[in-house]
């Protein structure tokens, strides 16, 4: 076994030091009745064979490259090689949570930088070191709000991602917090501003920006309504938009959450990436999870350390703000590095490319017979369409032509996905080149025309 170094001679010598006869003696504290007799698992494989097994699995997955137009919370953004190169450095990857600050300044400082970057993006005052993902960050943010204003009701926009809504509901089920829903305007797709009575007793108003259907919300009136009712506005965001759209604080958010997957983290079937949670400075003692603070060391040098730990489980135990212990530090690092490479201009440009390409594809698709937008509200790089045929059929026919055309919305009405429904959610990023978009259009036209045989050769170049 290549990962173990003891030889039998080592083992015997060590048993002698311990003063027992055999390895079995070491396990004497385990009652006889429980002593297992081996494992029903195959013998170990060498690295070559392990690789062959996993490579065969990877080959069973189908990768669409730039011809994938799926979003809905996981986006096809470019990850620069420097991000992989740096995050794979053993000093980052094989370290633990920075409990011994003196030998963990690397981790502590990059978390401090992550916190700073999130504050800059959102305009809010305090970010933590990361959460498991966007949805769980939203649930924790709702709890934060309820702790702050001592309430027990959560009002959730129908524009939340269905899965994040479910996560909030699951978290709320323990303490029994109530979660009710705020509808969308049928025309624009924007969240309707809640009335005072809807907000009665509500501690947290949860809104997604852009919302699940891609529509950019107008947050100011929602914030006002929430604040008038003594509730906090919690915004769940697609952070790429923050290079162009007004920062969260400016439009009234008290807490902002999201997932940094678009920054430096592969889609990886949905994980791992990192959630973030940023709040107003005055709410900092309600933050869940780790926080890094800057301080000075015994010699007066700038140094970093975990701070405000009295909020955390290992100190406060049952009165902690959350049970979170391990978070997603390495994924947060990937995001920090990617943001440092992008800089403010890069982030804005990235947003622009996404917006332009998405709007181009949108306009072109609307020219096709029977395709209609689901909502009229403004969108960034993702939009929902109504198709003249079942979405599952459309998707299958498109995939036969090498294009994964978008997420079938019926997937979220229960079941194992896409049965029935004519709506599809399409996302466009910098990875979908003009040629990929042309391919989408050609394929869609063929599918709508009822052509059966895929013709991978013919592609449409955009008339740029």
């Amino acid at each position, binding site marked *: 076994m290549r990962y173990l170094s003891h030889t039998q001679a080592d083992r015997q010598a060590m048993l002698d030091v311990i003063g027992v006869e055999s390895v079995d003696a070491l396990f004497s504290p*385990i009652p006889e009745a429980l002593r297992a007799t081996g494992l029903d698992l195959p013998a170990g494989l060498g690295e070559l064979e392990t690789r062959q097994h996993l490579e065969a699995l990877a080959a069973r997955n189908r990768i669409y490259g730039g011809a994938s137009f799926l979003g809905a919370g996981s986006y096809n953004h470019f990850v620069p090689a420097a991000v992989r190169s740096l995050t794979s450095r053993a000093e980052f990857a094989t370290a633990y949570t920075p409990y011994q600050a003196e030998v963990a300044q690397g981790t502590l400082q990059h978390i401090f930088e992550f916190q700073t970057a999130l504050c800059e993006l959102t305009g809010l005052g305090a970010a933590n070191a990361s959460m498991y993902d966007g949805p769980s960050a939203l649930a924790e943010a709702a709890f934060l709000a309820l702790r702050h204003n001592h309430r027990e009701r959560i009002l959730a926009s129908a524009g939340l991602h269905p899965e994040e809504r479910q996560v909030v509901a699951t978290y709320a089920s323990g303490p029994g917090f109530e979660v009710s829903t705020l509808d969308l305007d049928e025309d624009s797709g924007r969240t309707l501003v809640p009335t005072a009575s809807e907000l009665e007793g509500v501690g947290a108003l949860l809104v997604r920006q852009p919302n699940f259907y891609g529509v950019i919300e107008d947050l100011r009136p929602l914030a006002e309504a929430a604040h008038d009712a003594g509730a906090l506005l919690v915004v769940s965001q697609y952070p790429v938009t923050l290079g162009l759209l007004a920062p969260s604080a400016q439009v009234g958010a008290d807490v902002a959450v999201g997932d940094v997957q678009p920054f430096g983290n592969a889609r990886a079937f949905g994980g791992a990436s990192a959630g973030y949670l940023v709040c107003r400075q005055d709410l900092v003692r309600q933050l869940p999870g780790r926080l890094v603070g800057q301080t000075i060391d015994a010699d007066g040098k700038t140094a970093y350390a975990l701070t405000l730990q009295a909020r955390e489980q290992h100190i406060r135990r049952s009165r902690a703000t959350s049970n979170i212990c391990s978070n997603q530090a390495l994924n947060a690092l990937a995001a920090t590095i990617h943001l440092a490479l992008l800089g403010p201009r890069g982030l804005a440009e990235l947003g622009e490319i996404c917006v332009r390409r998405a709007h181009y594809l949108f306009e072109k698709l609307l020219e096709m017979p029977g395709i209609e937008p689901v909502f009229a509200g403004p969108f960034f790089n993702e939009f929902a369409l109504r198709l003249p045929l079942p979405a599952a059929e459309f998707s299958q026919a498109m995939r036969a032509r090498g294009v994964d055309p978008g997420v079938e919305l019926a997937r979220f009405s229960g079941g194992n996905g896409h049965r029935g429904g004519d709506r599809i959610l399409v996302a466009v990023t910098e990875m979908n*080149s003009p040629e990929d978009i042309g391919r989408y259009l050609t394929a869609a036209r063929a599918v709508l025309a009822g052509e059966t045989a895929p013709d991978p050769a013919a592609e449409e170049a955009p008339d740029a």
Partner: protein
Amino acid sequence: MLEMQPPIFARSRPGRRGFDLPAAGVPTPGGPEDRPGSIAGLLGEVEMRDEPPRLPELAEPEVVRHYTKLSQLNHAVDTGFYPLGSCTMKYNPKVNDELTGLPGFAELHPYQAVEDVQGTLQAMWELEQQLLELTGMRRASLQPAAGAHGELVGILMIRAWQRDRGEGHRDTVIVPDSAHGTNLATASMAGYKVVEMPSSAQGLIDLGSLKETLSRHQVSALMLTNPNTLGLFEEDILEISRLTHEAGALIYYDGANLNAILGKAKPGEMGMDVVHVNLHKTFSTPHGGGGPGAGPVAVGETLEPYLPAPLVARRPDSAGTGGAADLEGSADTYRSPEFYFEQERPKSIGRVRGFYGNVGVLIRALAYIISMGGDGLQQATEDAVLNANYLRARLRDTYEIPCDRMSMHEFVASAGRQKSYGVNARDVAKRILDSGMHAPSIYFPLIVPEALMIEPTETENRETLDAFVEVMRQIDRESREDPELVRTAPHTTPVRRPDEVLAARRPVLRWVPEDPVNG
């Protein structure tokens, strides 16, 4: 040269860039007349940013050098011994990182059609089967992102089960006083009252005190760790299980310490109802400086209906071809590839995160288990336990070992003796850093004064263990002969004892350009 670095924001200079983006390359449909082709025009009535966020502006070489130098300030498993108790800092095989990075895994979108994702579903399914064999449980969810997340899932399942049986009034979770903080925090996050039970003199659960607690409270669950945080196996586990179940409560088994018992004992056979497993400990996935981890939760019969949805399932009669023919009459699926998601689980507590879990971590763990095999995992456990007992035997002369019995994969020493020379556990830990090794966990578990919780893991060789013994002995000598040296340690690290009080009193949680400290 290990030198502290300025924050990356302080290195920024306006106009630099580390990334070249392609042109949009498509015509922009007209916006309003006054802003044709502009982004604001495209977006319509949307509030735009007035000023760009103050992200750092740097060229790629500057970014690479910054983070390379930051990395050098870290201690890590690959750079030295890391006997941090309860954290299982074992070697993280390189091949597993590479395999997880294969485009077939890394570039998969979570909502691709089920027939396009068979490889990853198979990986998840295989891992689940392996974990079930290792824990002796019936079914597992791979969704939780870490151990504490798994705990939350477990406790919420128990709560849902109890409400289903009309016992929603049970409002208490009990934990031994040696428990990890997450256990208590989890229980209260799920709305429970928490009662801590004092441990016995042997460091184990005291049956008398368990009985009493069970009778005095409306107990919903007992949470325990086995081997516990002292590294001791709960010898009365079957009795504990019987008593708890008789009282109508279930048992949550914190499997963070599973490394101690692979192939030696199974929580399922101990009568445990729900177990979480830390893939980032026992199953060798890298900790990443605090994550990502993964905390799959495995359950027995009672809780199976409550697992988070979706679960991965395999069509029993599948030919393994991954074909796309329709399967008539199935409520859960609409096609018949070999693997699929079981979505409709009416009693499920629901999701605890988006998508399906930290899949990249799952794949690493699968590769690890396949590489080790059943025998290898058992050998790993044996060596982990051997290493811990070896260190315990060799340190016993110089350090107090409060519960000095056969331990499992870790044990707890105390700096109590050294305390009498004016040196506490923190001082000992800091002085260890000067030797190029990491310190043990300190002041945990809470029941041992001046605790030094030592977990060597199986991937350390004997020379390293012996070197650690030498360091510990030397520190003991120093404590007697020159305690000031120890009290002011570390002396060779890039910084020394950051002022935590200051950090908490005047929290500086982000870089601000005006701040003179950051110049």
